[in-house]
């Protein structure tokens, strides 16, 4: 029982990180039709910005405050990087999907190479506050506290974005744009500006995911962005391209499947089972993948 509980909470924690990584991808694809392969670079930018922030603060600053500031800086850096990428690289290439893919893939590779060149290939450890590094006993299971942190942050982000989509004008424009962005523009709405805002929001979520994933891994390293991006794409596809709620559900499912398979089958089977899940979804639910945008 305690093992099952541990696996579920750990899976939910991992799913929370996947959701944070995938939510921006989903919004960007849903509204703009852009498959943003540079999303991993956004996560990397957030992770390293957070790590640098923690290192730059004096030792007298409590670790909890350092982590909080690192999270804020990572989120802000992700937003700024997303904004700049949209304005400089993506905007001139709207509706040119092949070029978009080439540019974002190139940016992803260049971002990883730049991080390697500046800070090296080795992982850099990230200190965690005592509470985050500790455990809490629930029903006999020692549950890592950081999982609760990830779940809590993901729930806040999910509810925040959901409220934004449901109750604000920006959300109304985004929901309409996901259905038919040409018609949104034909109603006199500057959909280009909405694209920029959504890209910045996606970048912010990616930056947040980057620093939190670094605390999960215990370090920052150049390969983290690409590793997380793969699972984020899987989540977005399983959830229905552009479906925000579907992305949240898929993130939870993928996190749980990965953890349970790793424990009950064999270590490493979790990744394989997620890919198999993706294949099954693509084969069985093929029409709904396209319909998911609506």
């Amino acid at each position, binding site marked *: 029982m305690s093992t099952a509980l541990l696996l579920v909470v750990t899976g939910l924690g991992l799913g929370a990180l996947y959701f944070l990584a995938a939510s921006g991808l989903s919004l960007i694809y849903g509204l703009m039709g852009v498959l943003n392969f540079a999303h991993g670079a956004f996560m990397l930018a957030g992770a390293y910005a957070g790590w640098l922030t923690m290192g730059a603060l004096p030792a007298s600053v409590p670790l909890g405050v350092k982590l909080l500031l690192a999270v804020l800086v990572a989120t802000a850096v992700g937003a700024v990087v997303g904004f700049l990428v949209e304005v400089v690289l993506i905007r001139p290439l709207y509706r040119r999907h092949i070029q978009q893919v080439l540019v974002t893939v190139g940016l992803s590779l260049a971002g990883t190479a730049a991080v390697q060149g500046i800070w090296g290939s080795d992982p850099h450890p990230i200190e965690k506050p005592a509470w985050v590094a500790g455990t809490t006993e629930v029903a006999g299971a020692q549950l890592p506290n950081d999982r609760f942190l990830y779940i809590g942050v993901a729930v806040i982000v999910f509810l925040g974005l959901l409220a934004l989509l449901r109750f604000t*004008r920006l959300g*109304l*424009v985004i*929901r*309409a744009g996901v*259905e*038919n962005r*040409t*018609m*949104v*523009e*034909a*109603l*006199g*709405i*500057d*959909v280009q500006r909405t694209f920029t805002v959504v890209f910045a929001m996606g970048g912010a979520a990616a930056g947040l995911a980057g620093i939190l994933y670094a605390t999960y891994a215990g370090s920052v390293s150049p390969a983290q962005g690409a590793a997380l991006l793969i699972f984020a794409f899987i989540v977005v596809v399983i959830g229905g391209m552009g479906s925000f709620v579907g992305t949240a559900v898929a993130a939870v499912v993928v996190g749980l499947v990965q953890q349970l398979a790793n424990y009950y089958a064999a270590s490493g089977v979790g990744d394989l089972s997620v890919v198999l899940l993706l294949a099954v979804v693509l084969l069985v639910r093929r029409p709904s993948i396209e319909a998911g945008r*609506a």
Partner: protein
Amino acid sequence: MTVSPVLSVEDLHVRYGGSHVLQGVSFDVPARGVTALLGRNGVGKTTTLKALLGLAPRQGRITLQGNDIGRGKTFRLVRGGIGYVPEDRDVFGGLTVDENLRLVGRDVGVGAPVVGELFPDLVARRKQRAGTLSGGQQQMVALARVLLRDNVLLLVDEPTKGLAPKLVTEVADVLARVAERTPILLVEQNLPLVRRIAHTVVVLDAGRVVHRGDAAALLADANLTRELLGVSLRRPTGDDAGPAEPHTEPHTEPHAESPQDRS
């Protein structure tokens, strides 16, 4: 006294890939009433509307109230006073009726006076998802949506397509009332409706203007109507905006006339 046209189009060209869809289209839209843009299927009517709104790649000179709008972005043209009702309505099916309207009328939605005046049914259906409405109701949403702006010109593309006869009459009534305030450039294949509400016609064939003139005069000339549109119109009756037939027939061959032949 001559009234300046609200819209002037000169030598408009549209190319999609290797296809030259519009080949130097020129016409004016008077500042009052309904101007019908007619022609068989596939001659470039919808493309013309899209080009005017910047939704199709275009070359040529387009002026709205004397101002050059040939290079403007779509959303700026709409804010500048061009309302657009697309051929397939394009309501946002996942949004409610009220949300569809609030995209344009930020604070009022279905509460806008014009909605209550022209589309009372939409007020009752304000919370209903637009995707669950009938075709006629969706058309009302599409029309109401553009009327929430102060337009100087409306582009309306086949508003009665696929609608039941009763709804065709309702749409015609709404358009006639709207045209009292705002000029309309109307693409329509329902000739009885055109005869009822249009004052001027522009006929396209193979991407060129082949006729411009008075709507009633064209539709009264059975031979000319058949020659230009491939169909003749029955005599007017009391309900001449009713059933959506006869429609024009699919385009078969380009006409040989130059754009000025029948102007």
